[in-house]
Structure formats: structure tokens, C-alpha cells
């Protein structure tokens, strides 16, 4: 991607806040997005992500703070003057206009010559593969087609930034997967900066160059999908993105980038790699993702690895992988997932089997409790 090569940010949000009465929806957030980036804002409902997006679009007036686009302060520009367009969660396709009229609406407001409007509308409809649907009314379209009308309508204006509010939430699973890649292709082709708001972590991971995880009006972490998944900054991010097992404990010893933590929850000490080791005696939490844990029938020999003994309490078969819930002697339940690499009708592990679970110290994370 071309992103991150230039120094000055394309979109810059400075200490932006939005209060609704006593409620603080967005709390002094700052953010820099590069030109051509596909940036996601990820968070649960009520975390302020939609309010933030609406402030970028101009539908909400910030309580304080500023928004810059390409070096211009657009904080107080009304939505109809911003070089920013939005695709709404409900798509908001005008029901009383045909597909063509919908897409042409924005260009008509720019008072472009008729021929240019028509050719750009045609071009855009073919980009979203709706060439033959121009004369249809929205109620004659499927949900996926309506979404593409909304996309074409927003893109035909050649905006500097396209804002997408939960772009895939209303589509079924297969169509969602297809549309994800289509969106990425379109973004690549046009080079427009995309800002996506979503509650779906999978969607955010697949689509984006970078993700901002938002909670209670603030950013918990901003980073690439990999950074956010593999190196979550805190327990909230670790928990929100994917599944993670956590063991609370106390630091016993730290040195050489390795932390040893005594955890009552698993009945032994665990080792984890950590750049900035916390002080001895401080409370921490060791976190391991289910797919980083190996499950075996016999105790592995490697003494470097953490190894726990437990009983299969529950298992789920997903076809491509199996999910196990292992109960330790202390009562703690650990989630483990393993790829079903071999084709076999028999289960590798069954209910109530005695098993060993292990992971490498470098797979574990040290987080604040």
C-alpha cells in the first residue's frame, strides 16, 4: 500500500469530543489516517464509533476538537460542502428514484453537464456491476444490489474519503465474504481513502490496513490487524478481538525478557516473553490464544513450554477445526482450538479424556490484570 509514506496525515482528528448532555460519546480522541488507507474503527455498540464517523461526515457538530482533511480544517463545514461521502448502514437509497437517478443525484447537485453526468453514472454502475439495473426502482433490487447502488452513489462524486457505516452488516454470510473482497478491489482501483465503522472484528481484520479499537468513546489501541491481534495492548483489546485465555497471577521473577508468573488459577508458574517486564510482585495476567495451544495425549518433553494437565469437558467440531474446553485440576477452563489436518471419522480426543495442553513462552502475552 502507498500508505504511511508521507509525513503529514491525510485525515487528522485532534482531540475530538462529542457530548450528548451528560453522556460523553466521544472523548477527546486523536487520530491520523494516511491517503489511500483502508482504516477501520472497531467497537461494540454504544462505544462512540458511529458518532465519530458522523462527525467526519458533518452530521454531528463536535463539542470540541478539530478535523483536518488534506490540510484543511473541515470541523465546521456542513456535510454538503465536505469532499467526503458516506455509505449508510441502511444504505439510504432514495426509494422514489430509479437506480440511475440515485447515482446521478450527487452530480446533479454539482450542476455537471448532462453528458458528463450520464457517462460517469454509467461508468460507476458498471464498476459495481449494475449496468442493466439503471432503470429499476430500489424495491425491485435485492439487499446486495441496493448496497452497491449506495456505494456507486457515494463513489460517483469522487470523494477524498469514503465513510462506510457497517457496510456488510445487513448481508448474509456468503455475500459478505464476496463483498469484502469486492470492496477492497474497488478501494485499490480508485485509491480513495476508506474509513469503515464496524462491530465485526473479522470484517475489520480482513478489510483494513489499520484498525482502531474503540471503547467508551476512547481508542484502546490503533494498529495493523496483526498488531492488534497478536500484541493487544490491554485485556479489553485481547478479549474483544478473537478469543483469549487469561490466567491472573503475580510476577515472581523477570529478567532476560522472560517473565515468570505464579498463577493460582492454573496451579503453577507460567513463563512468557515480555519486552518491558513488570516489577516483581506486581499483579499481571498471562494471556494465550486458543490456536497457540497444543493439545496432546502424553506429556510433551519440552521443559521450556508451559504445560498443564486437564480433562476434556466439552468439544465442538467445526469441520476445519475442533474446539476443546479443557478443565484444569484448579477448576479453570481453558479453550483450545486445533486444526483438523487429517481426514478421519474418529475423534482425536473425546469427552472426559485426560489431556496435556502446552504452549511456547513466546506465544503468551503479559497484560495488566
Amino acid at each position, binding site marked *: 500500500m502507498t500508505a504511511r509514506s508521507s509525513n503529514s496525515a491525510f485525515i487528522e482528528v485532534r482531540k475530538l469530543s462529542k457530548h450528548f448532555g451528560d453522556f460523553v460519546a466521544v472523548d477527546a480522541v486523536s487520530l491520523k489516517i494516511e491517503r489511500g488507507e483502508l482504516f477501520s474503527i472497531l467497537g461494540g455498540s454504544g462505544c462512540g464509533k458511529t458518532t465519530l464517523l458522523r462527525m467526519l461526515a458533518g*452530521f454531528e457538530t463536535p463539542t470540541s476538537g478539530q478535523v483536518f482533511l488534506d490540510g484543511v480544517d473541515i470541523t465546521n463545514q456542513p456535510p454538503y460542502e465536505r469532499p*467526503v461521502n458516506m455509505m449508510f448502514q441502511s444504505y*439510504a437509497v*432514495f426509494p422514489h428514484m430509479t437506480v440511475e437517478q440515485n447515482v446521478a*443525484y450527487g452530480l446533479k*447537485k454539482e450542476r455537471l453537464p448532462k453528458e458528463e453526468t450520464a457517462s460517469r453514472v454509467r461508468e460507476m454502475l458498471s464498476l459495481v456491476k449494475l449496468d442493466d439495473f439503471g432503470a429499476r426502482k430500489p424495491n425491485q433490487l435485492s439487499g446486495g444490489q441496493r448496497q452497491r447502488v*449506495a456505494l456507486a452513489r457515494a463513489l460517483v462524486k469522487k470523494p477524498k474519503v469514503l465513510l462506510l457505516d457497517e457496510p456488510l452488516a445487513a448481508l448474509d454470510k456468503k455475500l459478505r465474504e464476496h463483498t469484502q473482497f469486492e470492496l477492497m478491489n474497488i478501494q485499490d482501483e480508485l485509491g480513495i481513502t476508506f474509513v469503515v465503522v464496524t462491530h465485526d472484528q473479522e470484517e475489520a481484520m480482513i478489510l483494513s490496513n489499520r484498525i482502531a479499537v474503540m471503547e467508551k468513546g476512547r481508542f484502546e489501541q490503533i494498529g495493523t490487524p496483526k498488531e492488534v491481534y497478536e500484541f493487544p495492548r490491554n485485556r479489553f483489546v485481547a478479549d474483544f478481538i478473537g478469543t483469549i485465555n487469561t490466567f491472573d497471577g503475580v510476577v515472581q521473577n523477570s529478567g532476560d525478557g522472560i517473565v515468570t508468573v505464579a498463577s493460582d488459577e492454573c496451579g503453577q508458574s507460567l513463563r512468557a516473553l515480555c519486552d518491558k517486564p513488570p516489577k516483581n510482585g506486581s499483579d499481571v495476567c498471562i494471556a494465550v490464544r486458543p490456536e497457540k495451544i497444543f493439545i496432546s495425549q502424553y506429556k510433551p518433553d519440552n521443559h521450556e513450554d508451559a504445560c498443564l494437565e486437564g480433562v476434556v469437558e466439552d468439544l465442538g467440531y467445526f469441520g476445519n477445526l475442533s474446539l476443546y474446553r479443557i478443565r484444569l485440576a484448579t477448576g479453570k477452563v481453558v479453550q483450545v482450538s486445533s486444526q483438523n489436518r487429517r481426514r478421519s471419522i474418529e475423534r482425536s480426543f473425546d469427552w472426559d479424556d485426560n489431556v496435556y495442553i502446552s504452549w511456547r513462552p513466546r506465544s503468551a502475552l503479559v497484560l495488566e490484570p
Partner: protein
Amino acid sequence: MKGNSRFVISVLAFGYAFLYLPLLSVIVYSFNDSQLATVWGGFSMRWYGELFKNSQIIDALMLSLKVAVSAATMATLFGTMAGVALSRFGRFRGRNLFTGMITSPMVMPEVITGLSLLLLFVSLQQLTGWPSQRGYGTITIAHTTFAMAYVAVIVQSRLAAMDESLEEAAMDLGGRPFRVMIDITLPLIAPAMLAGWLLAFTLSLDDLVIASFVSGPGGSTLPMLIFSKVKLGVTPDINALATLIMLFVSAGVVLAWAIGRRMQKA
């Protein structure tokens, strides 16, 4: 089960008989040949003929229609403005109070509405010399005041059901607020406005009490004329007139219902 259904059917029959027998008797008697309205003298259409020769009735009908059309149009204009303001201007202080206040003319006893409007018109006349005489103008104003409440409620509920992001999308695409109103909002609430207009029209055509208060000599609406004629005894031509009005109103109701149904589908 069978006994139950017989019970249900008889309740239904009684209910509908209660509602429609009085209307039916008016229709039947409108075809009565006899001079006396309550004595059957054979079938005839003569009272329909008499009706159209009676200039008093025709004048009253014309006044009623004129008032109804003007009042419905004005009520639709003001009611739509109120409905849009109440549902689109965000949460301003006292919005609930205003929402409640717009519906109050619907629950206010007509006598009170009529009386207060009469007092207003009389004191206005003393102060400014206008309205110099009460009739078409004053009745139209009076009907507008209470009918616009109904229009406002209909428009407001339509707007509440409408996706607000449609207007935002139009604004996002470069439409200034006034253009968005013309391009998006008005076409989408047009069915509600039409339904409101029809309702206001019917309400105005029906009204007797308020019109009696705010009308002056020489300005009798159709309901006022009927009421004053009935006081001297029911004449068969009134039955014929009543039948025609029923036909007219039912057509209006069916039309409003059909529009409402289309509105739901859209």
C-alpha cells in the same frame, strides 16, 4: 366450538346493526315517495330532483365545499410544517410540550374551540375592523385550526417511520437543506399529506358546532342548514341529501384508506 361461533356471529351482527341501521333507514327513506319523512309511500327518486332545485341547499353545499377545500389546503400546509418541525429539528427544549400542544385541538370540546374562536374574531373586529363580517373567511380559519392538528399528527408519524438517513444521504451528496426538503422529504411524505388533506376535508365538511359559532348571517354551511331545517321537522329531501353526503364521505374514506395502504408498502 360451534356454539361459540354462533355467539360470535350474533355479537358481530348486533354490533354492525347498531352502527349501520340508522344510516340504512336514512337511505331507504330517501327513496320514499311520501311528503312525510317517516311514512312509507312507495319508491321514488323525486326528492333527489327536488334537492337540486332548492337554491338554499345548493348555496349551503357550495359554501361547505369551498370552506372544506380552502381549510383542508391550509391545514395541510401548516400541519405539514408543524409535523416536519416536530420530528426533524432534533431534540429541542420543550419538544414534548409542543408535541402535546399540537394535538390538544383534537381533544378540546368543539363548543370551547368554537366559543374561543368567536371571542377572538369579535375582539379582532373591534380592534382592527377585520373580519368585517363572519362567514366563509372565519369558518375557514376555524376549520384550519383544528384540522391542521390532524395533518400534523399524520405527517409526523410518517416522518417518524421514515429513515432519517435518507435526508442525511441527500445532504451528504451535496444537497442543501432546502433542496433536500424538496427532493427527498416532500416526495416521501406526499402520501401522508394527501391523506391528511382528505381527512381535513372530511372533518371540515362534517363540522356543525364550530361553524355555528364563528359564522354570521348569510353564511350557512350544509350541516348548519340541515340542522336548522330538521328543527322544523324532517323533510324527505334532507334524507336524500344525507344519502348523497354518505356516499361522498365513504368514497373519501375508501380513497384515504387506499392511499394509506400504498404508503405502507412504499
